[in-house]
């Protein structure tokens, strides 16, 4: 046989990439942390020690258990309405995870389809898509989201919509650029020579080849999306009380920061840890999936 096939190589590129990823301890650890947050969100009712909505005015601003005046039934203390902070933080992860994942998936899907169409079909499609992208990029993200939320009113669905409206732009640009390169490859020409439809070429020939950068950029963006949701809720434009969201919890505790630091700090720490973990995990993904970017 002409140069025996490189038998040692993994079956597919994807499998090889995942092996690379699994060897990266930091990224693997970060992924476990993100997974724990996801589990926490999924099983919140079973994990939370207290009812997150039950307020007990006698426990107003009760300190965490390890401080004087705290008790282990309320491990992280209570907020200004006497609600258990740990339980609210656990329930708050549902909002963050849901919005992070929903916006990321919708934006990646919309962006990928728009980017494929613009990059492969070129012409008028490309001009229209690219101009919309440019216009959206010229808006500051938070200001646009605030404006949209102010117009549409609060609500989970509206937050998702307000964030997706701008968020699809990034996956779109990445996919378009990758598609421009892929459409010149001879395997695309071969498919055209066989009479393949544009749809087949975009979805079956090109998409699998642009998936890696799409996954990498989308996971990176999930961290930003979570911060955006927290920001909107902090400003009172996001999830409405009494539903617990980390952003609104930080806002609630602001005025007691000196006397009762734990009210704002603990949800803030959760945002920090989750966003950091997502960033580290996606950095690992990037290193594994796109060796060109490896430093």
């Amino acid at each position, binding site marked *: 046989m002409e140069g*025996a*096939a490189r038998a040692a190589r993994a*079956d597919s*590129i994807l499998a090889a990439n995942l092996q690379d990823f699994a060897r990266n301890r930091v990224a693997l650890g970060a992924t476990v942390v993100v997974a724990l947050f996801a589990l926490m969100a999924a099983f919140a009712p079973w994990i939370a020690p207290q009812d997150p909505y039950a307020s007990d005015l006698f426990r107003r601003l009760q300190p965490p258990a390890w401080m004087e005046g705290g008790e282990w039934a309320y491990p992280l203390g209570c907020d200004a309405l006497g609600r258990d902070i740990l339980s609210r933080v656990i329930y708050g992860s549902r909002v963050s995870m849901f919005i992070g994942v929903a916006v990321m998936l919708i934006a990646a899907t919309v962006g990928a389809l728009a980017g494929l169409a613009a990059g492969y079909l070129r012409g008028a499609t490309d001009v229209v898509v690219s101009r919309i992208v440019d216009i959206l990029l010229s808006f500051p993200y938070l200001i646009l989201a605030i404006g949209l939320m102010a117009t549409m009113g609060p609500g989970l669905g509206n937050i998702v919509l307000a964030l997706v409206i701008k968020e699809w732009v990034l996956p779109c640009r990445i996919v378009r650029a990758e598609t421009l390169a892929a459409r010149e490859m*001879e395997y695309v*020409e*071969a498919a055209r020579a066989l*009479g393949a439809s544009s749809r087949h070429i975009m979805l*079956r020939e090109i998409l699998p080849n642009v998936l890696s950068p799409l996954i990498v950029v989308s996971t990176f963006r999930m961290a930003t999306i979570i911060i955006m949701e927290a920001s909107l809720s902090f400003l009172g434009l996001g999830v409405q009380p009494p539903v617990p969201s980390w952003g609104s919890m930080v806002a609630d505790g602001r005025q007691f920061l000196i006397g009762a630091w734990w009210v704002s700090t603990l949800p803030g720490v959760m945002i920090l840890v989750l966003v950091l973990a997502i960033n580290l995990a996606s950095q690992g993904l990037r290193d594994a999936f796109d060796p060109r970017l490896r430093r």
Partner: protein
Amino acid sequence: MTAALAPAEAPLLSVRDLRKHFDLRRGLRRLTGDAQRHALRAVDGVSFDLRRGETLGVIGESGCGKSTLGRTILRLIEPTGGEVRFDGVDLGTLDKAGLKALRRRMQIVFQDPYASLNPRRTVEQIVGLGLSIHEPRPAAAIRAAVVDTLGRVGLSSAHLQRYPNQFSGGQRQRIGIARALILNPEFVVCDEPVSALDVSIQAQILALLEQLKRELGLTYLFISHDLAVVAHVSDRVAVMYLGQIVELGPSRSLLREPAHPYAQALLAAVPRIDGAPAARQRLAGDVPSPLAPPAGCRFHPRCPHAMAVCRQAPPTPRTIAPGHVVACHLYEGGAA
């Protein structure tokens, strides 16, 4: 020239005055710029006929338009002008569906065995694509046909689920050949199918292509810059220079006694193995830009025999022997 060239039976492929000019103007320049000055003339007036079962070799330096010619014939690139008839049908008059139906009868094998196979698709998907487009049927039936075609090119069912990165260059080229052949095409453009391979592998792939041609009655347009390869596989040879065919003739006589000064220089540049003193005749200068091809004969700035007329008028193709056509002023006197 056509009268002398016309074979007894109708040609399978007939190309007339085919032209492809790439418009290099960008954006608004398309509205304001000079179309003529920014047109890259990759293929500029190419005509030939191809009989069923014949192999026509196309040789020329890189950038002379060989590959563009092959792709324009297959309508992978829209031509700027001219006509391509396949089995009597003018490809330019076909709608999308008509062209798609014809695509199964004309295929292409690419130069780069790496870029031409999608790294994210399995061999089964790559080779089976043509069938799933033209003859949709259950996966098991497609698989059987894929295994059959793989067998023809020297691969087996053990390779079905592998990805291209698990194969060597020669094996990859076999996969590319299987992909082109699964639909039983009549005409195949071989675009430098061996030039990316090691010499030892080249011979295997050439032998495979020849064997398949005999078994399946294929007609090849064989594009290459390698004279030895072209001499080996071709019945007739066309020499291209700056988007035009300067000489076309039976491969034996053309390669032994090239008539056009460019063909002579090209052949003289091949190192000889028999120890004969290399009568190398170096061409001065570079190939002129296809953006601004020289007036008159395109070869005149580098031609050792250039005359006054060469600078003014483009030569008309002349038949100098049966089936042997040359576009050169040297032969316009009375040779024909």
